[in-house]
């Protein structure tokens, strides 16, 4: 998985490219280490180029979301493909993540 960072005002945009699975989950979680040192971090994760997720990927997302919450941070997801949304819905973890169809909508939500 490739992970790119951008900043839009005070919001961190994290653009993922590749599968969020057992292999990449660790790298994904490591990415957030510095961000978790901030307080009130606002993170938008772009899923446009994530074609696949497995249970380890879901676990990584949940961990990151919970860890951000502990330091008053917030995260949301955008451009999540239909099949991945379906996996979130099956496991009911869609209740844990805010998801948006576009950057604009996501940015407005912070």
């Amino acid at each position, binding site marked *: 998985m490739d992970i790119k960072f951008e900043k839009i005002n005070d919001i961190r945009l994290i653009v993922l490219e590749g599968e969020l699975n057992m292999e990449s989950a660790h790298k994904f979680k490591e990415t957030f280490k510095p961000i978790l040192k901030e307080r009130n971090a606002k993170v938008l994760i772009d899923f446009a180029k994530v074609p696949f997720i497995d*249970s380890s990927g879901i*676990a990584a997302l949940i961990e990151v979301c919970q860890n951000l919450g502990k330091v008053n941070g917030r995260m949301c997801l955008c451009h999540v493909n*239909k*099949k991945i949304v379906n*996996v979130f819905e099956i496991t*009911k973890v869609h209740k844990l993540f805010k998801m948006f169809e576009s950057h604009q909508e996501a940015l407005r939500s912070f």
Partner: protein
Amino acid sequence: MLIEEKLPSDPDRAPVFIEAWLRRLRPLGLNDDQVFGLKLCLQEALINAIKHGNKCNKHLAVWVKIAADPRCLAVEITDQGQGFDPGAVPDPTAPENIGKNHGRGIYLIRQTMGAVDFSNGGRTIKMVMPLTGDRSGGH
């Protein structure tokens, strides 16, 4: 079509095997949703066999059998571990479990496949995906 393989208990190598099987199954003409579902279930079952079953022990193997005909695709995965009681696995969608960082693999398999059956004391999982319906669509 029949695929039979003996795998080493190395979780990092599982995705490479899975991609190779999916390539071999391409003539079946599965749609995108079916390929996604199959890949997910292969990944979950294989990782369970390697991690929970064989505890990543290099000296233990996992056997995979994929049998496909135009009507259905059957996958059987067997490990050499201690086995377990699949009936005792908690529901990951129960409110107290939704935030946990594990426990979704078998649930995802059960929700995705047409039929799922454990035997051999939990060391063998058999899952069947019906292949009827539209195979040209998907997104």
